[in-house]
């Protein structure tokens, strides 16, 4: 076990800041925990999806008659089994989705827009029969020209995906269809005026590739619809209320008829905030009148579920010789995949958010291409724009001969800074993470041959949102805590700790579960690093509700006014002038009198959690570059981040470490490789290269705590920020090692060797 987290909270709190065993832990180390694919129902069928082999094609007709006749096939559906939807954007995590597109992404209607796009689905008595049936479905396609690259998609004459798409946010409104869904702009001050004061100006263009969340558990669900229209779904999802809303909408059913249970979820990282299989399984089950189970293959996960955007980014920064940034521009072109809705807006908002600047202009474009529709991926949009900005800042620091941490300190955002995207920050930890980096031993340790060191910072907003929690006092004084945000990585532990802290009861007296959609009011999904923040806030409120009710019941028994009773140190006591008049009553004793003093005691919180606060990070990384093969190895890594307050420090560290590992994959090896026909060539973990254990060093962490004043325990979301700095941190380290600035991700060996050879020819390479 690692030592308790530094500074303060340990002494202040009994549970918060400690490292207990998570309540769902034993089930997860014994194989007992049930994930999406681990559910089975009597009479269940196997559902399989027919997917488009073409990147772009008009669907002239679909003939399912032969499949329907195959023995063992119980139902077949196509896009026409779902209701047409009007154009309407609604929030999904930090992203927006449009139902007109959701219904088309769930199953193609007029056109197949990417290889892997769902065309039809069958439910049969076995997987073998379901697969045979798919082969019997005849689809008449008119293959159309396709476009994969974001810059190509923006050019005049590019194949148009949606004939009715006109670029929004442009004046005057365009009259011709385009693949650019919208233009966004955030402006502060006057960048042209700022540029005139600059001693140094650097402008660079960057390219990043789409990367997949890479959760190890493929999408999986089982659905059962009864003859009277009551429907149940068990599913691996980040938000079961969202699944319910989407399914009810797409199928035209009452929301209340659908009950969704969140299975244990085998990773999501944003990718399980949307629906893929769930509406299909429900439609198939409704037709077949039997439960239908659907599990994606890994290949389907890559071909049909959303990665994050690939992008083209231009950044131009002007600075004074003393390191002060006087002008900051960026232009972002983000791929949305087949339907509008890339994370370009949050990307634009984040780009310069870590800095206190006077002149900022960021323009973003949301661009459709013939790829799977992007989904949220950990700080959606932020890593791309901040990679570019943090790279250029590093280059400016080198050019003016300034320490890159000092340059960032010189410009760091702080309490009261007005961000280019609008708000004034409350207390934030940018300066604190930079100072921690500067004083960290890593920053001063000498490097070896062919090694280089980089540093970069990162920002993410974090969100709150609608949240419900219930906390029932059981008849023996134990407690049942029910939350509605799926637990991806230790949420139940931290909720339990906050409830125990409030009530001053031992952790093992509280059992925490994630309730289904029938058990609680609405809950927005686990995303935006909101669960520990929002469900934590609701848990505290529910615990206080229990304490208040406990006092009320004791006051009845003692025949005292309610305000003459207080809850303190785990018991209800007479307070003030009445202190000592009655023996304190524990929760167990209160539970014993619940019936005769008014019935069951249940604390409840139904909130729209406000006051989410950004989390900032600064990372340091050492790389070693093989001068003959161009292979980059990460040899040391330190992630420093503001957690507000770490409820369970081990799981906070785990978020930092996991985000770093994903960032290393993004920086060095992960990419989608398409052939000339727009078919994905690497839809598996063999050639979509996520980091393996032997690729990585230990990842050191430093938890900085600048408490969020808007949360009862000072919590900031921590899950997303850790993936923001790694790409620039590594690129800056590679530049430091080689003398070559890489502006294209991934920095894979062939690219690195080629650039090294070119630099050697020019005499600019350091190795």
């Amino acid at each position, binding site marked *: 076990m690692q030592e308790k987290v530094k500074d303060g909270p340990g002494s202040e709190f009994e549970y918060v800041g400690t490292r207990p065993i998570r309540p769902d832990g034993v089930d997860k180390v014994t194989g007992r925990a049930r994930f999406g694919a681990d559910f089975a129902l009597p009479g269940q069928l196997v559902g399989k999806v027919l997917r488009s082999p073409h990147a772009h094609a008009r669907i002239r007709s679909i003939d399912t008659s032969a499949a329907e006749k195959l023995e063992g096939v119980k139902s077949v559906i196509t896009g026409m089994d779902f209701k047409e939807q009007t154009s309407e954007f609604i929030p999904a995590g930090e992203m927006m989705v449009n139902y007109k597109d959701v219904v088309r992404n769930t199953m193609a209607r007029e056109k197949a827009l990417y290889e892997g796009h769902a065309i039809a689905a069958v439910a049969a008595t076995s997987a073998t029969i379901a697969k045979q049936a798919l082969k019997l479905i005849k689809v008449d396609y008119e293959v159309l020209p396709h476009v994969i690259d974001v810059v190509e998609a923006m050019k005049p004459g590019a194949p148009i995906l949606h004939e009715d798409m006109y670029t929004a946010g442009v004046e005057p409104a365009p009259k011709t269809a385009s693949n650019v869904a919208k233009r966004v702009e955030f402006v502060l001050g006057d960048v042209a005026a700022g540029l005139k004061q600059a001693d140094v100006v650097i402008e660079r263009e960057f390219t990043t590739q789409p990367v997949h969340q890479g959760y190890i558990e493929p999408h999986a669900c089982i659905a059962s619809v009864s003859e009277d229209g009551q429907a149940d779904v068990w599913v691996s999802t980040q938000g079961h209320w969202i699944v319910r809303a989407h399914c009810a909408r797409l199928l035209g059913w009452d929301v209340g008829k659908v009950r969704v249970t969140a299975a244990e979820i085998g990773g999501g990282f944003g990718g399980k905030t949307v629906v893929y299989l769930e509406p299909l399984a429900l439609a198939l089950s409704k037709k077949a009148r039997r439960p239908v189970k659907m599990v994606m293959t890994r*290949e389907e996960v890559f071909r049909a579920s959303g990665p994050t955007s690939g992008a083209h980014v231009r950044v131009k920064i002007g600075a004074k010789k003393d390191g002060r940034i006087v002008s900051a521009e960026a232009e972002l072109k983000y791929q949305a995949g087949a339907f509008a809705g890339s994370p370009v807006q949050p990307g634009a908002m984040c780009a310069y958010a870590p800095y206190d600047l006077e002149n900022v202009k960021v323009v973003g474009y949301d661009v459709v291409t013939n790829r799977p529709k992007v989904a949220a991926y950990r700080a959606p949009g932020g890593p791309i724009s901040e990679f570019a900005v943090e790279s250029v800042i590093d280059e400016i620091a080198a050019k003016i001969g300034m320490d890159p941490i000092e340059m960032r300190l010189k410009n760091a955002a702080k309490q009261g800074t007005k961000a280019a995207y609008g708000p004034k920050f409350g207390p934030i930890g940018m300066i604190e993470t930079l100072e921690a980096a500067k004083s960290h031993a890593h920053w001063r340790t000498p490097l070896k041959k062919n090694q280089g060191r980089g540093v970069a910072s990162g920002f993410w907003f974090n969100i709150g949102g609608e949240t419900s929690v219930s906390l029932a006092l059981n008849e023996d004084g134990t407690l049942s805590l029910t939350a509605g945000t799926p637990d991806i990585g230790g949420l139940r532990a931290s909720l339990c700790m906050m409830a125990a802290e409030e009530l001053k009861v031992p952790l093992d007296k509280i059992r925490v579960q994630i309730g289904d959609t029938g058990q609680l009011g609405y809950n927005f999904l686990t995303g935006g690093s909101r669960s520990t923040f929002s469900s934590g806030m609701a848990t505290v409120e529910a615990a206080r509700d229990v304490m208040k009710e406990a006092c009320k019941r004791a006051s009845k028994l003692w025949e005292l006014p309610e305000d003459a009773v207080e809850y303190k140190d785990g018991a209800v006591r007479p307070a003030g002038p009445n202190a000592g008049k009655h023996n304190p009553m524990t929760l167990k004793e209160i539970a014993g009198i619940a019936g005769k003093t008014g019935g069951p005691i249940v604390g409840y919180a139904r909130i729209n959690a406000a006051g989410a606060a950004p989390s900032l990070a600064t990372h340091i990384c050492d790389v070693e570059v093989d001068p*003959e*093969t*161009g*292979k980059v190895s990460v040899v040391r890594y330190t992630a420093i981040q503001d957690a507000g307050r770490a409820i369970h420090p081990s799981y906070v560290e785990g978020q930092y470490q996991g985000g770093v590992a994903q960032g290393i994959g993004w920086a*060095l*090896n992960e990419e989608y*490789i398409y052939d000339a026909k727009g078919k994905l*060539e*690497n839809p598996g*973990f*063999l*050639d979509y*290269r996520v*980091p*393996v254990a*032997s*690729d990585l060093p230990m990842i050191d962490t430093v938890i900085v705590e600048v408490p969020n004043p808007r949360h009862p325990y000072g919590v900031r979301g921590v899950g997303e920020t850790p993936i923001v700095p790694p790409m620039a941190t590594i690129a800056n380290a590679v530049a430091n090692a080689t003398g070559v600035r890489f502006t294209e991700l991934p920095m*894979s*060996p*062939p690219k690195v*060797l*080629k650039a090294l050879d070119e630099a050697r020819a020019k005499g600019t390479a350091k190795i």
Partner: protein
Amino acid sequence: MRYEAPTSFDQAVALLTREPGEARVLAGGTDLLVQMRTDIVDPILVVDIKGIAETRQITEEGGGFRVGAAVTGAELKEHGKLKSVWPGVVEAANLIGSTQVQGRATMGGNLCNGSPAADSVPALIAAGAKATIVGPKGRRDVPVEDVMLAPRKLSLAKGEIIASFLLPPKSGKTADAYLRFIPRTEMDIAVVGCGVCLTLDAKGVCTAARVSLGAVAPRPLLVAPAAAAIIGTTLDDAAMKKLDAAAQAACQPIDDKRGTKEYRIKVAGVLARRTAQIALERARKN
């Protein structure tokens, strides 16, 4: 699909010969099952050869070793003597996939999968190994470099099975080595693979050598000019430079998802040098 698990080569050969449709031999299955799962192959008959004793044994023969085609990578690694005599072959076989894959993957399967990037094949070629093939017409021995013709294409006739590999006796200061280049540290397919086996005389001069490259041509190559570059030398810098150039000159690679032509050619030269250096150090100690 029909599954059969014969206990003799006669039975296995008869099953494969009689089946008019697509028939596949199953050894470790680490390629075959993936191809079945992803609908690349859909065999009517699968013949599991692991019940045939010879495919599962490592025996000393004629001063060398006979290694059954279905011996797993993990078993090769655990055979102390084989590992000390042919470290390059064993290391190469041990680079195929993960620890889990090592529990199943075999050199017979690695060769018969017909991939130019198979890790164990350049090592076997460099070692001068022969494949013993059984079929309707009996047994025959074929140099490993002659088994694979092109991607997914072997010189085996219908009904023929690779039974075992014969690693030759090793004399004096002889040693082998294998290296591959991959983007990660594990779990990838070779972008380039290189096997080197060389013999030194008492003065440390190389008297014989075999150099083999994988993943740089439609089939693993035995590169005679690369061997010639180091024979008669002490593998000094000049010889290493020539080896590098000869290895590069032998490459006829393609651009694909795992590497560019240009990159593969350069790395082939680098790997040839690095692999030869390891073989050299090992030979000096022998």
